[in-house]
C-alpha cells in the first residue's frame, strides 16, 4: 500500500519537476530508472549526492554521456565523507550553500532548477570557493579517467598490446 503511495508520489514529483528527477531518492539510495542503476549513499545524505551529481554534469556537460558516469565520478566523495570529517563538513556546507542560493533565486533546490544556464549562473557565484575548486579539480580526473567514457570521445586508450598503430591506421587520414 505505502509502496504504491510512494510510487505515485515519485511519479507525480517526477512529472512536476521535469528533467532533473531522472535521479530519484529512495531511502538511502539514488535510483536512476531510465538508466537502470542505483547508488547506495552511506555517509552523505542522498539529497546531497543528487546535488553533487547534478553539479558534476553542469561543470563538465557532455550530452552524449549518461548520468551514471557522473555518479561514478562523484561516489568517491561519499566514501571520503565517511573517513574524513573535514571533507564531509566541506561538502555539507558547500551543497547547502548552493541549495540556498537556488532557493533564494528559483524557490527550489539546486538539482531542481530547470535550466542548465540558470544552474551554471549559481555555480559561478561559488566557483572560487574551496568546495567548488575541490569538486572540479577531482572531477576532471574522476570523470575523464573512466575508460568507459573514452569511446564516447573516440579515444582508443592502450595500444601496445595490439601492436601499436603501425598496421592499424596511424596514417589513415584521407580528407586532407
Amino acid at each position, binding site marked *: 500500500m505505502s509502496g504504491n503511495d510512494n510510487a505515485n508520489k515519485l511519479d507525480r514529483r517526477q512529472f512536476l519537476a521535469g528533467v532533473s528527477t531522472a535521479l530519484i531518492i529512495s531511502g538511502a539510495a539514488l535510483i536512476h530508472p531510465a538508466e537502470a542503476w542505483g547508488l547506495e549513499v552511506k555517509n552523505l545524505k542522498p539529497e546531497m549526492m543528487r546535488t553533487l551529481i547534478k553539479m558534476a554534469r*553542469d*561543470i*563538465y*556537460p*557532455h550530452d*552524449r554521456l549518461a548520468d551514471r558516469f557522473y555518479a561514478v565520478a562523484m561516489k568517491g566523495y561519499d566514501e571520503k565523507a565517511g573517513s574524513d570529517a573535514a571533507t564531509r563538513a566541506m561538502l555539507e556546507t558547500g551543497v547547502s550553500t548552493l541549495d540556498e542560493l537556488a532557493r533564494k533565486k528559483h524557490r527550489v533546490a539546486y538539482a531542481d532548477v530547470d535550466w542548465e544556464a540558470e544552474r*551554471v549562473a549559481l555555480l559561478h557565484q561559488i*566557483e572560487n570557493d574551496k568546495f567548488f575548486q575541490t569538486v*572540479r579539480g577531482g572531477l*576532471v*580526473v574522476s*570523470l*575523464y*579517467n573512466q575508460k568507459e*567514457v*573514452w569511446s564516447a*570521445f*573516440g*579515444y*582508443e*586508450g*592502450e*595500444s*601496445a*598490446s595490439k*601492436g*601499436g*598503430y*603501425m598496421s*592499424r*591506421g*596511424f*596514417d*589513415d*587520414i584521407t*580528407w*586532407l
Partner: protein
Amino acid sequence: MAAKFDLTDDTVVVIIGSGAGGGTLSNELSQRGIKVVILEAGPRYEIEDFVNDEWESFGQLAWKDMRTTAGSWRVHRDFPNLPAWIVKAVGGSTVHWAGASLRFQEHEFKTRTVYGAIQDANLMDWPITLKDLEPYYAKAEDKMGVTRTNGIPGLPGNNNFKVLATGAAKVGYKQVHTGRMAINSQPRDGRGSCQQIGFCFQGCKSGAKWSTLYTEIPKGEETGKLEVRPESHAVRIEHDAAGKAIGVVYFDKDGKQQRQKARIVCVAGNSIETPRLLLLSESSKFPNGLANSSGQVGRNYMRHMTGSVYAVFDKPVRMWRGTTMAGIVSDEAANNPQRGFVGGFEMETLSVGLPFMAAFLDPGAWGREFTSALDGYENMSGMWLVGEDMPQASNRVTLNPAAKDKWGLAVANVHFDDHQNDIAMRKYAHKAGSAVYEAVGATRTFPTPPYPSTHNLGTCRMSENPRDGVCNKFGQTHDVRNLFISDGSQFTTGGAENPTLTIVSLAIRQAEYIANEMGKKNI
C-alpha cells in the same frame, strides 16, 4: 656484470641522477675504465613495467615529491605543487621524453652578443661555441640513433603530422618534416623500430625510443665499472677542510642514511633538484650553498617559452595514433627580431590522450565552452610550441623552509615570471600555429597555456668568469674542482630546441674532460 662498490671506496665517481646527463656520463666514464656509482632517487622500472595509461603512468613515473611555486606564471595558479613534469626513476626523464633531438643554432651560444642587452634579461654568451660542440653533437646523434642523421631515414608521418605538414605548406613554411628523432625508424643498436604506439610520454613499450634506462646504463653495467643504486636520494654533498668534495650523503631504499665516499661528484638531478642539493649542502666554508660563491646557484631558471595549439576539424584526425612528436616546422626557429621578439621557436606535433587533454587544455576551465572542445577530441590536431625564453636572475629555485620533504629537508620553491619577450613570442607563436590549422580548415583553435615544465634549464649556468656563473665550459664548478654539473642546469641560455641532445653532447664532452683530468691527476 654490474659492479658493487664499497661505501668507503673513495676512488669512485658518484653521479647523482641517471637521466640524459647522468646516465650518459656514467656509460662514457665506465667505458674508459672509470669506476662509477649512480645514486638515483627513483626506482628501477623496465620496459615491461610501463603502462599505456596517462594517469596510472604519471603515478608510476613522475617526480611527485613536494615542491612549491611562486611568481606570475600560470603554472603557479594551475599546478601550485607541480612546477615540472619530470621522471623519478632510473633513466630519469629520458623515460618519458618525446625523442626530439635538435642541435642548437650557432647564435644561440652567443645571445648576449647577437641579441644585445635586453632589459630584465640576464643574457650571457656561453663559454663554448657551436663549433666546440659539433663533434659531440655528432657522437650523440650516432649514440642515440637520431633520424635524418647518420643515414637513418625519417619516421613515417602519422595523422597528426599530415595535418601539420599540409597546413604548414599552405601558409608557406618550407622546413617541415617528421623530425630528428631519437626513435628508431629501423632496427638499430639492438633495439627494434617504432611501432607507432602513441604513448611516448609513458615510457616506450617497444624500446625504439632512446632512453638511458635500456641503452647507456646497461652498457655501462656490462663494463663491470658501473653500479646503479635506485631509490637512493642524495641529500648532501660533503667536502673536506680544503673545500674538495669527498662524498655524498643519501637515504637508501629502506630510508637508512648512507654516506658514499667519492673522488669526484657529478650532479645531474635536473634543474630543480640540482641547485636544491647544492643549496642543501651549505656549510661554514660554503655558507650560501656549495659552489655558490657567485650567488648564481638556482638563478636563471629557464623552462622554454612553451604553449600548444590544438585545433578541431570537421572530420576525424585521431592524433593520438603514432609517434607523439615526429613532426616539426622549423621556419620560425631563426632569430628574426622583426617579429617583435628575439630568439625563435619550433612547432612540433603533440598529442595527449583524453584524460590529459581534459586536465591540460585549459586548466581550471569548466562549462560548455570547455566541454564542447573535448567533444571534438577525435577531430583534433595538436602542436607544441617550444622557443627560447629569457634567463632572468629573479627566476629562481630556492629552498622553502616552510615546506619539508619526507627527510625533513626544505623543498624547492620555483619562482618564475614570464619575460616580456616570452609573452610576445608566445602570442606570435599561438597565432602562427592557429594559422597552420586554419589553412587546412580548422573550425576552432585553442591557444593552450604552458604545461608544468618538461624542459628545466639554467640554475647552475656555465660561465667564462667565475663571478657570473656556477661552472666552467666543462660543467666543472668554479669553486669546487672535483664537483661537476652534468645536466641541463649548466645551460647558460636555453636555445629554442628541445634540450636533450645538447645535454647528452655536453655529457660526452664532460666525460672526456674528466677522464683526461683524472689521468693528469688534476682531480
